């Protein structure tokens, strides 16, 4: 990587600051500076919106509602109570964030388009409340006579000074957004967007981070609302209606949803473009041209303007050819043995009477078994035997109808996947649940989530301990990559790796959380013979660290070669348990795999027959 490319972030920031700083020198008039203020306010509002929509994929479209809250709190405090405008702005932020905190949990239970509609309904309630609460808000006429902006008595009566103040606040929002972007929370948001299943498996509290982003984006939106109120010198219910929500959405989509910069860029672009079209005095054509340009930008640059600029920058600064293929041998010494492991023979995991039905189908019927610390146990059985369901019950992905699951004596059957991960249970998936929107190293860093402690406040301010923790996380993630044999693949996107290597990334991610127990769902599926053998060796190396392994696997060569104990399931019931060589001789196991004719029907089959008859 060239020196220039390493400073992409800094260069982008510097370029943006210079561009914003010199704009009033070229366009000093009151009107163009006003346009700059409007763009700056919108830029501030987009940052939180990008984190919420672009990073965490939460379609909360009613953001203009929080601009309105900020605008009203500010206007009312300034006009009726003679507050200092800046103090009123901060009060608006607090009110918006508290309100968002109350709304967030119920509304974020909704997903996709339902959430979109609910968030617009939320905005509608704000609008109606503003119109009806005449004594407080001034009703449909609004609150007039908002003073010019000031910070603790220092007036920003000069338009250009106000312009700079607005953009300083926008840049503070962008800075906070960038700090979040390059932290564990940024990774958590991308993880949630890529696969909530996998995000839970590494201990990411999905709801918590969605709520945090909803609250932060409300706070940033309220800053924009306050700035708007001071610019317009008034606040009324029509300023931040659905049209503004739509503008905000257009801005982040045009600017680029996957970059904190995208929103600010988009806000500037669409505000500027609208003024340009307005100056051409073609009122009828304004919306049409605006819409067409939006479509053209989206077709030409799927990553928005920020994506296009980033790609151009990468192309200009890239040196050398493609990265060398990853062919490094696994390094068994890269990870330390697990400490504090209970002595061999302790019951690590205990499943007792686990039962789960889907309609009439008993997918898992009263299954009990134990996994001893330090052992490798394989769960096997023909198609439809209920292995995956049982695995999902243990991992917290589905609730049990009856029975208990205990991890080191602690009941875990009512816990969510992220709680279970935080206890020290790692997990891999049959059809790869990698976070394709991050690099391989970042994927593995996500595995450290339960071991990280920096919260949203220290991350937003980028305190020194955040950088220290990031460095430690990076080191540990690299060690996990070395262990599985993927040194050198850290900066690649997972999709650039072969299927077999992608599976190793998943294993490294699960190992990064320093698990006591690892659950592997069909780790050998899709691997060729060479890869299968290497995978088996890796599982042995994991066991040698002291980590207990429970796997579901259909490749009998792997199962019979690796496992200390087998648990055989058929029609949702456990039909056999024991050492591999004993289990494969059992007539009932042979019948389960090859067909029924040699054996008496089991209880499950009898009930099925009755059902048919």
């Amino acid at each position, binding site marked *: 990587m060239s020196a220039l490319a390493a400073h992409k972030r800094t260069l982008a920031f510097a370029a943006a600051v210079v561009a914003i700083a010199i704009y009033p020198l070229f366009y000093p008039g009151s009107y163009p500076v006003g346009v700059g203020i409007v763009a700056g306010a919108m830029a501030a509002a987009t940052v939180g919106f990008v984190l919420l929509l672009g990073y965490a994929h939460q379609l909360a479209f009613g953001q203009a509602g929080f601009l309105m809250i900020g605008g009203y709190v500010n206007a009312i405090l300034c006009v009726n109570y003679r507050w200092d405008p800046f103090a009123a702005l901060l009060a608006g932020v607090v009110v918006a964030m508290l309100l968002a905190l109350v709304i967030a949990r119920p509304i974020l239970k909704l997903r996709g388009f339902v959430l979109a509609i609910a968030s617009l309904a939320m905005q509608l309630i704000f609008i109606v409340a503003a119109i009806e609460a005449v004594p407080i808000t001034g009703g449909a006429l609004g609150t007039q006579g908002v003073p010019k902006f000031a910070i603790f008595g220092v007036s920003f009566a000069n338009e250009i000074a106000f312009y700079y103040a607005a953009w300083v606040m926008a840049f503070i929002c962008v800075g906070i957004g960038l700090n979040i972007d390059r932290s564990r929370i940024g990774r958590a948001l991308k993880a949630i967007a890529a696969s909530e299943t996998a995000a839970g498996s590494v201990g990411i509290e999905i709801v918590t981070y969605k709520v945090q982003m909803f609250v932060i984006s409300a706070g940033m939106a309220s800053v924009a609302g306050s700035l708007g109120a001071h610019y317009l010198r008034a606040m009324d219910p029509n300023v931040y209606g659905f049209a503004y929500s739509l503008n905000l959405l257009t801005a982040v989509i045009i600017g680029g949803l996957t970059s904190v910069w995208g929103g600010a860029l988009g806000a500037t672009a669409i505000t500027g473009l609208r003024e340009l079209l307005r100056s051409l005095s073609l009122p009828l054509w304004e919306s049409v041209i605006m819409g067409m340009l939006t479509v053209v930008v989206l077709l030409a640059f799927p990553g928005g303007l920020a994506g296009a600029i980033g790609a151009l920058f990468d192309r200009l600064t890239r040196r050398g050819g493609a990265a060398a293929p990853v062919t490094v041998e696994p390094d068994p010494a890269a990870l330390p043995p697990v400490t504090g492991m209970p002595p061999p023979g302790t019951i690590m995991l205990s499943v007792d009477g686990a039962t789960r039905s889907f309609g009439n189908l008993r997918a898992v019927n009263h299954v009990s078994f134990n996994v001893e610390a330090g052992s490798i146990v394989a769960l096997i059985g023909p198609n439809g035997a209920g292995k995956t369901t049982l695995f999902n019950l243990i991992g917290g992905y589905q609730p049990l109808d009856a029975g208990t699951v205990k991890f080191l004596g602690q009941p875990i059957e009512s816990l969510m996947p992220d709680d279970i991960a935080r206890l020290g249970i790692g997990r891999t998936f049959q*059809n790869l649940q990698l976070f394709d929107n991050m690099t391989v190293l970042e994927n593995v860093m996500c595995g450290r989530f339960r071991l990280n402690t920096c919260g949203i406040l220290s991350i937003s301010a980028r305190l020194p301990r955040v950088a220290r923790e990031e460095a430690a996380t990076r080191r540990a993630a690299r060690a996990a990559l070395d262990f599985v044999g993927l040194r050198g693949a850290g900066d690649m996107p997972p999709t650039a790796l072969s299927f077999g290597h992608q599976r190793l990334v998943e294993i490294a991610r699960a190992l990064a959380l320093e698990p006591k127990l690892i659950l592997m769902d069909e780790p050998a599926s899709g691997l*060729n013979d060479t890869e299968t053998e290497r995978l*088996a060796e890796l599982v*042995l190396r994991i066991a040698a660290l002291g980590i207990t392994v429970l796997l579901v696997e259909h490749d*009998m060569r*792997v199962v019979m070669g690796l496992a200390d104990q087998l648990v055989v399931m058929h029609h949702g019931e456990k039909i056999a348990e024991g050492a591999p060589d004993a289990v494969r001789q059992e007539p009932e196991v042979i019948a389960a795999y090859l*067909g*029924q004719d040699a054996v008496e029907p089991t209880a499950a089959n009898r009930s099925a*027959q009755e059902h048919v008859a």
Partner: protein
Amino acid sequence: MLLELDRVTSGYGRLPVLHEVSLAVGAGEIVALIGANGAGKSTLLNTVMAMVPLSGGDIRFDGASIAGAATPAIVRAGLAQVPERRQLFGAMTVEENLRLGAYARADRAGVVATLDEQFRQFPILRERRRQAAQTLSGGEQQMLAIARAMMSRPRLMLLDEPSLGLAPLMVTRIMDQIVALRAAGGTVLVVEQNARAALAIADRGYVLENGRITVSGAAAELLGNPAVQEAYLGGQGSGVRAIETSIRKKRRAILGR
């Protein structure tokens, strides 16, 4: 040969499943493709029906290549698939499901005749013609799935795990229906995990193991072949199964047990 797979390689996106699989089905035959779960059996049928893209090799139907053809064209050429877990339209009635099976046909009178044929073959479906498919028992649903596939009057029927989730008695009845299909002039490629049931009615069989055909031959011979059992439950033999021995050696070296 009615259907010929010539060194077919395919898989799901990142996941390669079949490696150079060759297989043939002659007109009027029942051919069983057996193997443990995950071996690639369903992928093979889905590849034939172009629901999984072919990444290498060729597939010929009645002598003409169908590689690259879209699924509807393949159905019109005379193939029909009964997918795993039946994939019925649960909220629709039995008759609606059957009529949808004839979606690719334009001859209305012919469709009515075929519908009657199916009701003669499966009288229980006539009884339940106005009932939602999801209210049928597992065995009845499997019959409906077969009858629905018959509605397109296929020359070759691909059956994916017809015994899945059924009680032994029901398995026997479904297998009898497959024999009846052939007696009526049909050709069947049946994919089964239940090797004994499938080989009992098939003329020939292929064993698929980890995406490769490892054993093939007359069905009666395969029934007694120990290699078939090993394909399901492993064994420390030679060839691809030598991996088990090698893993055990590593286990002793690394874990000392």
